[in-house]
């Protein structure tokens, strides 16, 4: 997994499995302090203390199809490699919040990658979940809600090529406006 978007896509599956109905993703670039923050917050079923502690252990997983769980472990490793930190807070019945911090200029900081694809593909697959993506740089703030897009489209399919291309272009144009560093 080379980019932050790939990791986000991966972590989102955890939130989806946890039956979240609202998932908020935020990326903040703080060039002044040479930092980049990733936050993913859901209102899923959450985890107890013990599970939260074990979640970043690659040999721990809640699933039954296999014995390893690498998603969170890999993201934690990426953050720590890039001179950053990783932190997971969760409460049963309330949800889970993940915070990862990276040193912006670190060669090991994963690039943002194709977050537009992550957003589109995840939204397409999970029609009843509200996804919010927010990206902040010192040039501005961009925020997109999946519900707004769906409401506006109505009966028109998200898979329609022109619509798919337009959604992806919308995200890309806005991110390039606020001079996202990839």
């Amino acid at each position, binding site marked *: 997994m080379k980019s932050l978007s790939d990791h986000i*896509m991966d972590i989102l599956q955890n939130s989806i499995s946890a039956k979240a109905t609202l998932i908020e993703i935020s990326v903040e670039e703080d060039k002044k302090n040479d930092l980049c923050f990733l936050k993913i917050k859901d209102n899923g079923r959450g985890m107890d203390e013990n599970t939260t502690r074990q979640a970043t252990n690659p040999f721990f997983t809640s*699933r039954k199809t296999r014995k390893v769980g690498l998603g969170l472990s890999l993201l934690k490793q990426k953050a720590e490699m890039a001179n950053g930190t990783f932190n997971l807070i969760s409460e049963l019945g309330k949800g889970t919040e993940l915070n990862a911090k990276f040193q912006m200029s670190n060669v090991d900081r994963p690039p943002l990658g194709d977050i537009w694809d992550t957003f589109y*593909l995840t939204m*397409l697959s999970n029609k009843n979940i509200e996804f919010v993506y927010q990206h902040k740089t010192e040039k501005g703030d961009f925020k997109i809600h999946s519900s707004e897009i769906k409401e506006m489209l109505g*009966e028109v399919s998200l898979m*329609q090529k022109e*619509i798919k291309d*337009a*959604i992806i272009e919308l995200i890309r*144009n806005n991110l390039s406006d606020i001079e996202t560093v990839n």
Partner: protein
Amino acid sequence: MTKIKTLADLQRIKGEVQSKFKIRENSNNPTQFVQIKVGMATCGIASGAKETMKYFIEELERQAIDALVTQTGCMGYCYAEPTVEVILPGKEPVVFGFVNKTKAEDIIDTYIKKGELIDGIIPITFKTIDD
């Protein structure tokens, strides 16, 4: 053409699309559709499942095949990622392994369009996972 930046721009595209084509609408009856589930767990993403999923969406749309492409979790065949589960209407699910673009093309041309099985099926009594 102006750049697409806001929801209003997206709405304009929607209008253009609606006036030009007969729109494929969201179906309330997915059983009539070809259902494609792309394994999108850590193992899948690391092996390029995102590209596979994008390819299926683009290709099925281009060929006007009514299909529902979604993500699913890890099916337990991490060694064979990207894995794709294909459900033809009225048929049992079939799981294919190592689905890159070439394989995806083969699945669409041979299995989805003609109903003929091709190599690369993961031969295990398979049950769709729900989580």
